[in-house]
């Protein structure tokens, strides 16, 4: 048992090394996609009326006339340096453009994830304990419906109801324009305002966060609920659960201690996989609620063919997904000591 902590460290290192080729493949894929695309960033930037010479000069400036391999090498160097190159549109390092928006996205996605986990776990455990009953059926219907409603559509409906009709909550943005946002420590407004000791700013930030994160969370929670239910039912049929029941252990204790705990490893794994879905949902949520995040920024930069920005954002997304999957694997290795590769 003495080498246990050592093997966990090894496991983490191997896991990190395995992630690198994945990120690299995505980087390359996006690079290739953007180069084979019809449409030229230079003419897209200058509009339809620019002369060929002006366009040509701009292409030269942007390095678009270099051989494709030279461009690829430069791109990889930019990524390794960490600034992702200079944005065509804004003429500043892409990382500077991304940084603030990344924290906005992280704040939204984290809160959405928490909402989804809370709802998903409760609905899932609740229906698993009442399998075959009307509550189970309702939980199942919730799962299907929350998946079937397009996220932007319930977003709009919620804006109309809570924002416009009832007037309870703001419908767009991250912070009111007239109030100075909290000083940047982490970039997350909720945490920064607390660090500053300003409860009023915290509440304002929270108010802006409620609708988008609830909508995002609810949209994902149905899938969570069904996974939790399925996995709990599977573990509840295991011999040790039957044995625990036979010993007269209370049903509630059986369900939580034996059922939920052992269902946790597959559930945590699937939560990790759903993180990608959550990011996809964030694109729609951010656009619907004018949230100044990374995803809505990507949509605008794509329309302008700002290659360095698009590449930078996609890289950050790929790193986020990879990071989450590593964290999930580590959590699983901690929950269940048998997991080692």
């Amino acid at each position: 048992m003495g080498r246990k902590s050592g093997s966990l460290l090894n496991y983490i290192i191997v896991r990190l090394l395995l992630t690198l080729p994945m990120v690299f493949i995505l980087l390359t894929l996006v690079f290739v996609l953007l180069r084979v695309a019809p449409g030229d960033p230079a003419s897209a930037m200058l509009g339809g009326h620019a002369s060929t010479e002006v366009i040509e000069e701009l292409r030269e400036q942007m390095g678009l006339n270099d051989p494709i391999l030279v461009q690829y090498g430069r791109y990889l160097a930019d990524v390794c340096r960490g600034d992702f190159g200079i944005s065509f549109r804004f003429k500043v390092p892409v990382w500077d453009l991304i940084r603030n928006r990344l924290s906005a996205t992280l704040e939204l996605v984290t809160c959405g994830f928490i909402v989804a986990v809370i709802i998903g776990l409760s609905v899932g455990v609740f229906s698993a304990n009442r399998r075959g009953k009307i509550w189970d059926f309702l939980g199942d219907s919730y799962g299907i419906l929350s998946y079937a409603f397009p996220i932007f559509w319930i977003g709009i409906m919620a804006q109309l109801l809570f924002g416009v009709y009832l007037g309870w909550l703001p419908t767009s943005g991250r912070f009111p324009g007239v109030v100075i946002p909290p000083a940047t420590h982490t970039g997350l407004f909720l945490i920064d305002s607390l660090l500053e000791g300003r409860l009023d700013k915290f509440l304002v930030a929270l108010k802006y966060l409620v609708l988008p994160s609830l909508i995002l969370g609810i949209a994902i929670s149905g899938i969570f609920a069904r996974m939790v239910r399925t996995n709990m039912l599977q573990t509840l049929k295991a011999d040790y659960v039957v044995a625990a029941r036979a010993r007269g252990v209370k049903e509630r204790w059986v369900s939580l201690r034996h059922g939920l705990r052992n269902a946790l490893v597959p559930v945590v794994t699937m939560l990790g996989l759903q993180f990608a879905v959550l990011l996809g949902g964030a694109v729609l949520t951010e656009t619907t609620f004018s949230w100044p995040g990374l995803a809505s920024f990507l949509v605008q930069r794509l329309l302008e063919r700002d290659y360095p920005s698009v590449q930078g954002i996609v890289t950050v997304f790929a790193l986020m997904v990879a990071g989450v999957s590593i964290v999930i694997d580590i959590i699983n290795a901690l929950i269940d000591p048998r997991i080692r590769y």
Partner: protein
Amino acid sequence: MGGDLRRTWAALRSELFTISGLRIVIGLTIVVFYVLVAVLAPVLSPFDPEKLGVGEMLQTPDSTYHFGTTYLGYDLYSRTIYGTRTALEIVLMATLIAVLIGVPLGLISGYLGGWLDRILVLIMDSVYSFPDLILAIVIAAVLGSGLLNAAVAVSVVYIPQYFRVTRNHTLSVREETFVEAARALGASKLDIIRRYIFPSVSQSIPVILTVNSADAILTLAGLSFLGFGITPPKPFWGLDISEAWRYMTMTRDYPQVWWWTAIPGFAIVILIVGFTLLGEGLNDILNPQLRESQR
């Protein structure tokens, strides 16, 4: 194949009054209804869905304009009906593309193994791990708008899924006795894949197909809401919602145009529920072991 069909049918008949059977019946009814609407669209629509100003702008639903009109005077009823066509066409194309690429690659990768398998798995896993919608957006933006382009953008998301399922199934079938026998008799690799492995693998495809169709519609709706893939005046629900939303945020004239967002939204929701119920019902019946462990 006939035997398979008969077996499926027998299973269906005995399951008709269980929950799975009910799911299939409801799901299938919804999907068939949408298909009928799509086919009969020219007969059912009173107006040309892409024609401006067939009515006054922003009319509330009444007997002439059943679902009201939009800001540009499009008839929303006709647009909703024709939207069914757009949705089903693109989903059909996208699924076809995904199956035609994902399944053969999965068969080859699983059967041949080696470095080709390793590289393909790595690429597919990378694509699979990346957020679906974001990938689709990038591809749709790169390709530009159009029905086929939208279908390609949506299909890329699903190729890895068909690839994974096919490859894993191939790996397990490859070592079965009947494949072994065929190999011993000197059948070529292509023959073995086509005649012995594919028929067995193909059984797992219908379920993913239905479940993916639901997802594809969501992806497509998301794409068009963000302004990629399909562009106006093409009738599509996601597009109508997006236009209504833009109008609402610009004019702040919110509650007066409820029908413009609500109706296309319900069109999406009901179809997705249909596909989901159908897919899950099929899954329950075609994979009984899985169901046993879940009930």
